[in-house]
């Protein structure tokens, strides 16, 4: 267990220094059997039991954060973002009642959590629309963007990582290294600004204005989302390409690869049939870690490409000082991150039964 913990130490590090640790980490997960004990459902239950308390603590932290505002929330909301409003005392009291700020803190928090479970946390202060109604209207776009970004990044990164490992030291290896370093250093919003620049200058083309849902016109929808998805997926692609390369290189040194070569398996098949599957485990871990970049990145790219998703909702809410919405959305983002990571862990369990079965 201890070595498992020690390997955990670089979890969710977006910078360069952790890749090797993830390799070690995923190996440790396998090595220390107690890390994920039990079988099937029991395994799922165990993972859930660690996620739920964390999320509860997360909710308390968000709740507390939103209440250490310098000054009174209701007054701040009424004064408005420009600081022009001059609220009267009765207005402040009324808003406080509406937001339930007159109740004790514990009750406020419990109300909020119950509201989360009932999918009803009241209306947005800005638009007046119920928060969850607006959230559910915007969620499909954000999920589509996230899925597109993850898919494109994997489609680019895994072949690139394989080629870089197989042709180690070749120009393709160096090209992929440049790609990786770029992904870790170039901000996604600059990638997008450059994309706009290139599309306008060389193709005299801009993506169609006004968001069209996938169900209405998939083709237009694709044209609107693909550029944002590519920029969003770049950092993920960089992490995955690097991980694929180093993991594959490590697996290629294993005895069973030498055995496969010795019995005359063709190089191609050694890589595809023997090495690749075994090298994918750390890659799966890195995909899970990188989800933080994808989820956080939607905020930036939806704003940049004027896409009405959840990320844009968050930025607008902050600009409008719509604290109830900010509070709920912050939790929703943490929840999405937790769920995707849980999914990744389950995939991991499927790929490597050693984790499930002691």
């Amino acid at each position, binding site marked *: 267990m201890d070595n498992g913990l020690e390997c955990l130490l670089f979890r969710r590090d977006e910078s360069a220094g952790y890749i090797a640790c993830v390799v070690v980490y995923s190996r440790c997960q396998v090595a220390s059997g107690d890390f994920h004990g039990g079988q099937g459902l029991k395994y799922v239950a165990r993972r859930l039991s660690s996620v739920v308390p964390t999320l509860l*603590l997360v909710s308390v932290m968000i709740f507390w954060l939103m209440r250490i505002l310098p000054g009174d929330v209701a007054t701040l909301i009424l004064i408005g973002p420009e600081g022009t409003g001059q609220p009267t005392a009765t207005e402040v009291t009324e808003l406080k009642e509406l937001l339930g700020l007159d109740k004790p803190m514990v009750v406020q928090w419990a109300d909020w959590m119950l509201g989360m479970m009932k999918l009803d946390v009241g209306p947005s202060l800005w638009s007046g629309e119920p928060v969850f109604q607006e959230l559910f209207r915007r969620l499909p776009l954000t999920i589509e963007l996230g899925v597109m970004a993850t898919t494109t990044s994997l489609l680019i990164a895994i072949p690139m990582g394989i080629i870089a490992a197989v042709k180690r030291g070749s120009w393709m290896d160096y090209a992929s290294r440049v790609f990786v370093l770029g992904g870790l250093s170039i901000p996604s919003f600059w990638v997008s600004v*450059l994309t706009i620049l290139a599309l306008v*200058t060389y193709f005299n083309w801009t993506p169609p204005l006004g968001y069209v849902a996938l169900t209405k016109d998939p083709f237009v929808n694709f044209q609107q989302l693909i550029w944002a998805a590519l920029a969003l997926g770049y950092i993920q692609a960089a992490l995955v390409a690097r991980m694929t390369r180093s993991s594959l290189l490590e697996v290629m040194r294993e005895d069973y690869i030498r055995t496969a070569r010795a019995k005359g398996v063709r190089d191609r098949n050694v890589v595809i049939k023997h090495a690749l599957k075994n090298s994918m485990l750390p890659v799966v871990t890195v995909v899970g870690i990188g989800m933080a970049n994808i989820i*956080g990145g939607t905020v930036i790219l939806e704003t940049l490409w004027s896409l009405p998703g959840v990320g844009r909702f968050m930025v607008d809410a902050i*600009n409008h000082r719509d604290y109830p919405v*900010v509070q709920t959305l*912050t939790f929703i983002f943490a929840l999405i991150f937790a769920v995707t990571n849980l999914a990744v862990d389950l995939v991991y369990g499927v790929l490597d039964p050693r984790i499930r079965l002691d």
Partner: protein
Amino acid sequence: MATITADQVNLGGRAQRTRWQSMVRLARRNPLGAGAAIMLFLFSIIAFGAGLDTLPLGSAQGAASPLIATHDPFVMSSEEVLQKPGNGHLLGTDDLGRDLFSRIVYGARISLWVGFISVGISVGIGAPAGMISAYGGKWIDFAIQRVVDAMFAFPTIILALAIVSVLGKGIVQTTIAVGIVGIPRIARVTRASTLGVKSLPYIEAARSLGAPAPLIVSRHVFPNILAPLIVLGTAGFGTAILAEASLSFLGLGTPPPNPSWGTMLSGAAQQYVRSAPYLAIFPGIAISLGVFAFNLLGDALRDIFDPRLRGA
């Protein structure tokens, strides 16, 4: 009686390297790291030498006395709007007629400041928390680690946004938000390293001599867990610059008219992308080079401190 210098002692054996020689040797072994160090040295020179003033962090606007910068980064000029690079403006002017080169040069100050202070906050809170966690016994450890878990449960930008939504816009607020976001990583690494060092014989020796825990931690543990902290701190610099730029780009970080690299890429840069593409190109290069250099240096330091991870 003559005093014996280090040189004389070493005369018989292998010649001792001077500090300069060993630095050159280190640089030869890590050409990328040395390149990054040089880049960051230039970066600091640009940031400090932008002008003989403390803009945009201290002195009031109008107090600019540019040194490396060629113009006052705040002064607008309606006659020189959207000038192309050249003609007295090295990188051209923006939509308000401000000199882009000077704004980028002064922007280096914001990036360096945010990076320095926010990493200071992360390490200043995260490192003691990690050491207390490792040394404080079962319950303290449990409590601190659960808080660290909860902080890890946020996507980075989201946590920073939530903090900024509470603190408001401004350079200081952004720096605090970016600093807080970096705490859990430092805390976890510090804890793990401390646990690793804690059971080593020299700590046991100190304990058996009766040294109190605070003394052991500060005198014996801390110097020995410094290496991973330096590596993480360096990489954290890059992350901090990126986070500040992202927040500013969203209009929630460093407020205009301050010359933050992130702010420069939003608004006008996109609006005039066709007629003035340089507005979108140069600030982005500045961010990318800055982050790139810190990432590269972080990698190089990791190689130096922990050769086991090399080439991974």
